[in-house]
């Protein structure tokens, strides 16, 4: 919904008074721009209740107030989800994970400014999640990010801790100081174990098993391999994770990259460096 400057001007006037606590009659251009972005950010907050906004019937100040309240509720819900995550939190020794989730996110909740700068998410979010969040910013980005971390923690928590730690430690590229997604490494191991018909997923493969894996990958090709791995993932989630569709859709995002790595690894006969 587009609003003209004549509707937004009184809003920014009001917000600048609050920002300066009525103690300054002027503000720098940068501050005015920041406040304008804050107003537009709140107006753009989508909600099922905001039908009038979607149809263009809501005046700008009401749209702003509604969007602001929606944003506050989202952040509060995300904080509760974060508290839930921290009950059984485990970063498995990965530095980026710890810095972002354990140290970084509490600072976000402490310092986030939904009124005057909701568009600033404050953190660099170094630990990579499996979905592309670049189109989001501000509070919304953190909401999505925390949701991803919640899904990851749910997935990893159901697996034996020493298994996960060993799989990560034996990951050829290492994992503790790298900006790698932990779930992607573990899922790759599980799905490759299933590809070579292992009954329980093994931490280490023998040379014979790597050869079998390589043959299987070459035989399937890219499309079929992707379908097979997706089916295995679906089976894993259905049998071990209560058919959690959200979790399946999240982990499925790792399959495209996985397929490329496995095919390259099989062609160059260095699967031991890939999985």
């Amino acid at each position, binding site marked *: 919904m587009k609003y*003209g400057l*004549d509707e937004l001007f009184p809003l920014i006037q009001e917000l600048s008074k609050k920002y300066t606590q009525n103690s*300054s009659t002027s503000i*720098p251009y940068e501050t005015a721009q920041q406040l304008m972005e804050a107003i537009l950010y709140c107006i753009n907050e989508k909600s099922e209740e905001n039908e009038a906004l979607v149809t263009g019937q809501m005046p700008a100040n009401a749209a702003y107030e509604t969007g602001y309240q929606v944003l506050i509720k989202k952040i509060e819900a995300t904080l509760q989800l974060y508290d839930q995550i921290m009950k059984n939190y485990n970063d498995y020794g990965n530095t980026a994970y710890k810095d972002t989730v354990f140290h970084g996110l509490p600072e976000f909740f402490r310092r986030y400014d939904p009124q005057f700068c909701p568009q600033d998410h404050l953190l660099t979010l170094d630990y990579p999640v499996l979905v592309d969040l670049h189109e989001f910013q501000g509070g919304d980005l953190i909401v999505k990010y925390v949701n991803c971390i919640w899904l990851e923690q749910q997935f990893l928590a159901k697996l034996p801790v020493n298994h996960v730690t060993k799989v990560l430690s034996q990951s050829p590229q290492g994992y503790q100081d790298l900006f790698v997604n932990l779930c992607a490494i573990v899922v790759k191991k599980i799905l490759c174990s299933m590809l070579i018909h292992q009954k329980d997923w093994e931490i280490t493969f023998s040379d014979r098993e790597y050869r079998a894996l390589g043959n299987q990958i070459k035989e399937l090709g890219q499309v079929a391999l992707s379908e097979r791995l997706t089916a295995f993932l679906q089976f894993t989630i259905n049998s071990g994770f209560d058919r959690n569709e959200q979790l399946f859709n999240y982990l499925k995002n790792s399959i495209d990259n996985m397929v490329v790595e496995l095919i390259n690894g099989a062609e160059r006969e260095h699967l031991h460096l890939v999985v």
Partner: protein
Amino acid sequence: MNLLELMTVEQQKQELLRVMDCNKVTEKFGLTLSEKEAKDLMVCRKESLKENLRIEFEGGILPQIIYEFCDSQYINQRSYSETISELQEIFYYYKNESMDLLTDDELLDFMRKQFDEVCFGDLDYLKGTCLERFAGAVRAGCQCHMQSRERDEYTIGDESNEYFSLSQETRWEYELFKIAIEEMD
């Protein structure tokens, strides 16, 4: 004319009335602004805001500057409009230089005190020494007397000028001057 333009025109009319209203107080000190001078001041205000990359939404600082300085012994009718215009420019410049860490009242309070007691009405001196050092001190984390509540209704009689702790100028001392005069006699 769209709604925004109408709002702006109306706002400018109100601001002009506010500035002209100041004459009711300032005429006691022999200072008045004609309508042309008031309009010129508002044009200067617009240019100064643009130059300093600032935006004012309503009201504006002009009436406050007028009320703050109208009883200064260093302002007379002949230079009134020009002085107010320069003070306005200095004000916006130092709001930026102090990174908006000072409220309008705090900055104006400092400017007025230094204008009278240290600069004796010299605006170049005010801009080039007192305010420059003060803004630097504020950026470094120093709190002015008003911020730390040293200047309130309980300490009105306090004569210490906070600029003296920042000053780097060599000043003549009145007591030494008095002794020298007495010795000559």
